């Protein structure tokens, strides 16, 4: 019952299943006209009534790619020159070296492996690890630091930069706050439970606050049960080995996070990678996997697990959940959805990608997420059917060996969840979710209008601006800091070599003024540094607003 569209999207016509999708448009999704949908045009839900969700990955002009390679080539040549000077002794060596007495032993430090770190990263590392000396809210304070020897060592000057606008923290709903009223319950629980747990969940660290939080989490996500862990990265890397093992097949997206990759490798299962968000590639691999079975014996796989993320944080793209769920049901595979960046940040009421696409949460076998981003705390959760979660309680490495979540952190998560769900009696949560959606739309539309190349889906609060050339990446970060805006720039190992970018994370705590200020400075910096590579024309923000008022008003 599936037909493929012209560019690889699945067109599903399911007439009598519970999904009841009508049609999926060529360029994006059209996920309503569903009889179970409740609201159509409630005031304030402009996000929900938008029909298209487009993802664009525009290519820059060809000279940009050429000059990026030229730039890297020049810096590499000079890297070789500097390495030679250090080898000959004309220049001091700053990296770790063995002691004189051990020079004849097997080398401990492989010099060439660190070529990139030593010769590219060290030159410009003042753009990362900047010391922050206040709460990482929408504005924060940073300590100023200078370097006398080209970034090998730093010293703090003692001056503090106040009120730097923060567009890099994953503070999607603005719960990183230190307002005493909001934090009252956290303070109470700290008085009651203390801060340390001093044990693992399995032994004697299972506090009643953990049980409450797990029940609340299951209710929030709409599943049977959930389990929480103390660290988000460890949730992935320690639980995937408990779910799959040798003889299982993992189909993982090209751009999955390191924690997922690490968990997959630790499990010992066979890993196959499909192209990012490409349903053709995934279906082909599913078919091949089912038809040929395990590598040499051709026995059927014990399980097939599809691992995807809700929002991919380096691209800002959103997973094609309805299509993956359809594929999973057709080929009887399991789905592991990592909603680290999307829980709380997308969806009508902040419930994540399942709500964004109106997918039944019971269709996703294992839902995973972290509390670091939208909830302003730390830790992760795994949710799903009761049997799965109960199995993980005994068999997960994290629950058996890692320390349980700290009580004030658990209480922070609980208060954030209650706020989002509306259980604390106020509309603060839903206001924040809508403010985030509004900020996202505004920022993206204005950036496209200015002429920057942006990746990703229109709904995702993670906005990467492509900078491409290494010199520009560094200059951009420094110039924005000089204008008192702190941005996160990402370069080679985390992104492909020609696609260095600056990643902006929207927050519900950003006011329209702050966003306008950031946009104004971005405009100037973009002109000074010639960063506006886009060759498409987009409608201006005022035109979009008129169109929306018309849409809402009818």
């Amino acid at each position: 019952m599936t037909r493929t569209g012209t560019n690889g999207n699945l067109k599903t016509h399911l007439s009598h299943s519970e999904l009841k999708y009508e049609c999926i448009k060529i360029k994006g999704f059209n996920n309503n006209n569903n009889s179970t949908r409740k609201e159509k045009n409630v005031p304030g839900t402009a996000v929900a009534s938008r029909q298209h969700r487009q993802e664009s990955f525009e290519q820059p002009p060809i000279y940009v790619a050429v000059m990026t390679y030229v730039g890297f080539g020049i810096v590499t040549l000079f890297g070789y020159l500097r390495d030679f000077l250090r080898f000959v002794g004309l220049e001091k060596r700053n990296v770790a070296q063995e002691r004189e007495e051990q020079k004849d032993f097997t080398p401990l430090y492989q010099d060439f492996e660190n070529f990139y770190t030593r010769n590219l990263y060290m030159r410009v590392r003042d753009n990362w690890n900047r010391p922050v000396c206040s709460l990482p809210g929408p504005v924060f304070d940073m300590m100023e630091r200078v370097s006398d020897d080209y970034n090998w060592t730093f010293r703090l000057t003692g001056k503090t930069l106040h009120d730097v606008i923060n567009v890099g923290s994953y503070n999607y709903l603005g719960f990183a706050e230190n307002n005493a009223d909001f934090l009252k319950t956290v303070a109470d629980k700290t008085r009651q439970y203390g801060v340390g747990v001093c044990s693992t969940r399995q032994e004697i660290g299972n506090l009643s606050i953990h049980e409450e939080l797990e029940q609340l989490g299951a209710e929030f996500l709409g599943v049977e049960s959930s389990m929480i862990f103390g660290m988000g990265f460890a949730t992935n890397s320690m639980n995937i080995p408990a779910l799959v093992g040798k003889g299982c097949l993992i189909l993982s997206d090209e751009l999955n996070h390191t924690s997922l990759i690490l968990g997959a490798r630790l499990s010992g299962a066979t890993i196959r990678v499909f192209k990012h968000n490409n349903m053709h590639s995934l279906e082909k691999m599913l078919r091949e996997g089912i038809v040929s079975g395990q590598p040499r014996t051709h026995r059927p796989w014990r399980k097939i697990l599809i691992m995807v993320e809700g929002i991919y944080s380096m691209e800002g793209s959103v997973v094609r959940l309805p299509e993956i769920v359809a594929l999973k049901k057709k080929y009887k595979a399991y789905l592991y959805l990592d909603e680290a960046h999307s829980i709380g940040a997308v969806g009508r009421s902040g419930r994540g990608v399942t709500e964004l696409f109106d997918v039944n949460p019971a269709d996703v076998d294992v839902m995973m997420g972290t509390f670091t981003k939208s909830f302003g705390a730390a830790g992760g959760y795994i949710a799903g059917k009761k049997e799965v979660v109960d199995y993980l309680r005994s068999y997960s490495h994290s629950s058996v060996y890692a320390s349980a979540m700290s009580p004030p952190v658990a209480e922070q998560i609980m208060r954030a969840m209650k706020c989002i769900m509306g259980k604390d009696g106020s509309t603060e949560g839903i206001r924040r979710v809508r403010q985030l959606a509004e900020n996202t739309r505004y920022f993206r539309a204005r950036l496209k209008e200015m002429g920057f190349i942006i990746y990703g889906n229109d709904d995702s609060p993670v906005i990467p601006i492509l900078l491409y050339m290494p010199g520009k990446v560094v200059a951009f970060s420094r110039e924005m800091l000089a204008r008192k805006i702190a941005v996160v720039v990402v370069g080679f190992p985390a992104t492909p070599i020609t696609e260095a970018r600056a990643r902006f994370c929207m927050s519900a705590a950003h006011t329209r003024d702050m966003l306008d200020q950031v946009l104004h400075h971005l405009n100037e910096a973009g002109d000074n540094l010639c960063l506006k590579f886009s060759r498409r024309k987009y409608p201006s923000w005022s035109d979009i607003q008129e169109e929306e008022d018309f849409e809402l008003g009818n």
Partner: protein
Amino acid sequence: MALGDCWKQLSWFYYQYLLVTALYMLEPWERTVFNSLLISVAGMAVYTGYVFMPQHIMAILHYFEVLVHPPVRLPAPGLEVGIISSHQEAGSCADSRIHTFLTDEGYRRTRSDTFASASSAL
């Protein structure tokens, strides 16, 4: 005032050059090394072009028979420059491609002269 604007514009161009070639990440002495290498290579290219380009262009035009007579005066005084590619078949003077060259004495050979000497050599 115009000079100030000009200077600002030039320094903006220099900044763009530094950014695009990633020299912005390098230390000042490395930039000096790279810039000197670039300028010397570019200078040598320009000088070579200045010396040889007119002669090459005239030769190309003669090859494509845009120029009927072979080029006669080469604007490079004092140079012993000889580019001869000549082949002649018996009786077909149209095939011969003889460039003239300037010897130390500065006289030039015309086509008929060369012909006469070549046929006398047979």
